[in-house]
């Protein structure tokens, strides 16, 4: 049993969430990971950093979630190799491949060593996240990707993407089908890789906050908050109470905005165009309110290190309260309508199922996880201010199909409406900003339950307070492999519906 109590090198991190950080030997890594797994914990992320300037080598970084909160392990590597963790945590597989593409660290014992975010723009011998990386000029040519071939009588392949028919982000899907039934789906992502982590190196915190808001535009509040949280943990900075309440208000507004939009598209993909219109009328009104009160339709750049940018203007609270009543009523009507609609229910029920045991094995998280009985919600398990006052009710389902993900969305809208009412009535009065002291060296973490699931950020600052390493993690990274599972045995035409029911981020996973 390896608990922190007998390992003094693991210490609590200051800040809003229960987090511990420490250095462990590479020889202890697997044992520690196994302990966490056996106790029902999960892998949040696996990444690495180039520490050659200070310690002479590379560090593997691993963030785990256990019953005490977040456990961040830094593992100095004597060589370029480390033991793969994919047999313990299946979601490690793509993270290991990404780490190899970006930093050149080798997961020993891993089964799949194909590139993941590297498509050929830089060579297999160049590693962008090494501090001495020189971008190739000109950029390399794209390489072919060795998809897994599926053979058998009557099997054929359908390649889709990266450019899709609808308004969605780019990614490639390779279906192996017999007739219309999908035998296997293989995803290839990485098309929107923008080198975010490299870009962040050397940034000051203000610029980093702008970048954080653009990891995945649909989760701008969640990423901004998590990044601010990580910086505040390093600077030992406590934002004023009102700022924290406003952050939570923004986060719940982002959740409702996204759920409304997704429910609209789910109606659309199920053939009910009128449902799409109804939800998008609501969403548009919601965004216009945000423009009016916060000056940005999608709530970008509202959160700063140490506080928030805008207060609610005097009538803002009144206006939002009135709006909540309208939205709640109309969403209830739409919910009833969808439940009565046999055609829509027929498309939703038992489509794209991820069973709870499969979800548990893959460490599925977020709203899709909750629809497959994975009862994780940071607002419930590790509530920070102001969630610690409001007893958040988690929405869970166990059927794991499109219908379950729709149900969770409806329930979360209603719960967020309740939370927003609470925030608007009880919001304390205080300043909006705590003065941000000059930067200092250190490591910090942020962890926020965004609409899609938990958003994690690890941040390391150098002595000048500039970014040394910033690692943002979208829940999509862990959940994408479950889309491959969900489509199996379904028909190809149901893929858009299934994909939309997850609505994962491409940009957030590609970085």
């Amino acid at each position: 049993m390896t608990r922190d109590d007998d390992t003094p090198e693991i210490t609590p991190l200051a800040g809003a969430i229960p987090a511990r950080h420490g250095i462990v030997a590479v020889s202890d890594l697997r044992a520690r990971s196994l302990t966490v797994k056996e106790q029902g914990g999960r892998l949040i992320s696996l990444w690495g950093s180039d520490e050659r300037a200070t310690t002479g080598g590379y560090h593997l970084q691993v963030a785990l979630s256990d019953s005490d909160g977040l456990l961040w392990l830094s593992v100095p590597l004597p060589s370029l190799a480390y033991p793969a963790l994919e047999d313990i945590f299946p979601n490690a597989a793509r993270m290991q491949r990404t780490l190899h593409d970006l930093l050149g660290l080798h997961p020993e014992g891993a089964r799949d060593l194909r590139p993941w975010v590297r498509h050929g723009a830089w060579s297999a011998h160049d590693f962008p996240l090494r501090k001495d990386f020189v971008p190739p000029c000109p950029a390399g040519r794209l390489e072919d990707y060795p998809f897994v071939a599926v053979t058998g009588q009557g099997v054929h392949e359908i390649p889709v993407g990266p450019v899709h028919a609808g308004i969605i982000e780019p990614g490639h899907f390779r279906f192996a089908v017999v007739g219309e039934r999908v035998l296997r789906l293989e995803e290839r992502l990485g098309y929107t890789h923008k080198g975010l982590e490299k870009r962040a190196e050397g940034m000051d915190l203000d610029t980093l906050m702008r970048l954080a808001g653009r990891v995945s535009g649909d989760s701008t509040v969640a990423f901004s908050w998590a990044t601010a949280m990580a910086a505040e943990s390093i600077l030992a900075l406590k934002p004023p109470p009102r700022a924290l309440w406003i952050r939570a208000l923004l986060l719940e507004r982002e959740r409702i905005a996204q759920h409304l939009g997704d429910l609209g598209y789910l109606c659309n993909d199920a053939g009910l165009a009128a449902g799409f219109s109804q939800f998008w009328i609501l969403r548009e009104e919601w965004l216009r309110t945000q423009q009016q009160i916060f000056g940005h339709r999608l709530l970008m750049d509202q959160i700063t290190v140490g506080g928030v940018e805008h207060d609610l203007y005097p009538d803002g609270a009144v206006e939002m309260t009135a709006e909540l009543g309208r939205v709640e009523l109309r969403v209830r009507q739409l919910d009833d309508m969808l439940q009565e609609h046999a055609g829509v229910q027929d498309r939703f029920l038992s489509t794209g199922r991820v069973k709870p045991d499969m979800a548990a094995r893959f460490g599925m998280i977020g709203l899709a996880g909750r629809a497959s009985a994975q009862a994780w919600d940071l607002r419930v398990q590790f509530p920070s201010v102001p969630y610690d006052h409001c007893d958040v009710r988690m929405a869970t389902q166990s059927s794991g199909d499109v219908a379950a993900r729709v149900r969770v969305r409806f329930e979360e809208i209603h719960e967020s409406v309740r939370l927003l009412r609470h925030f608007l009535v009880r919001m304390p009065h205080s300043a909006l900003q705590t003065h941000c002291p000059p930067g200092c060296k250190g490591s910090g973490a942020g962890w926020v339950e965004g609409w899609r699931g938990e958003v994690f950020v690890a941040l390391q600052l150098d002595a000048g307070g500039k970014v040394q390493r910033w690692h943002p993690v979208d829940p999509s990274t862990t959940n994408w492999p479950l889309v491959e599972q969900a489509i199996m045995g379904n028909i190809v035409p149901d893929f858009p519906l299934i994909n939309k029911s997850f609505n994962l981020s491409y940009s957030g996973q590609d970085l």
Partner: protein
Amino acid sequence: MAGLLRQILSLGLLGEALPPTQPEWMSAEVDHIQQSVLRHFGRSLGVRLVDAGSCNGCELEIHALNSPQYNLAGAGIRFVASPRHADILLVTGPVSRHMEEALKRTYDAIPAPKWVVAVGDCGATGGLFGESYAVCGGVSRIIPVTVTVPGCPPSPLRLLQGILTAVSGSAPNSLPPQPE
């Protein structure tokens, strides 16, 4: 079903007027432009989107264009599934190196005459992502751009303005910055 019909009826028609094109002096010509869209494109100006590496914020606002308030179909504009059916290409994002080829191919697949609207600060210049080992910069680095619509992300109204400005023919090549 009856509930749905009641709700549709009770909300009524929400479509709003089209925004003026840029520059402002052209706003008097909106009707004219719309008429010409209708004349030249037979009530169907086909728009195709390529996300060349965006953060997906711009996509959200392009989706929002489909909200009934913007009455896109009323303006004779619709999103099409294939570049071969498109007249206008909307491109979002800084162009990632991994999307450069796909963007070129999509552009080539659109029959002439064609217009390109570079969407957002990223589409204009690469935005915060700039130019790097992973990113080529703005859209005009890769394909010819007719109109740039700055903003992060540009509002649906501005997008609509950009589309109308592009087909109006006498376009300046960029809309002014989005007012705060």
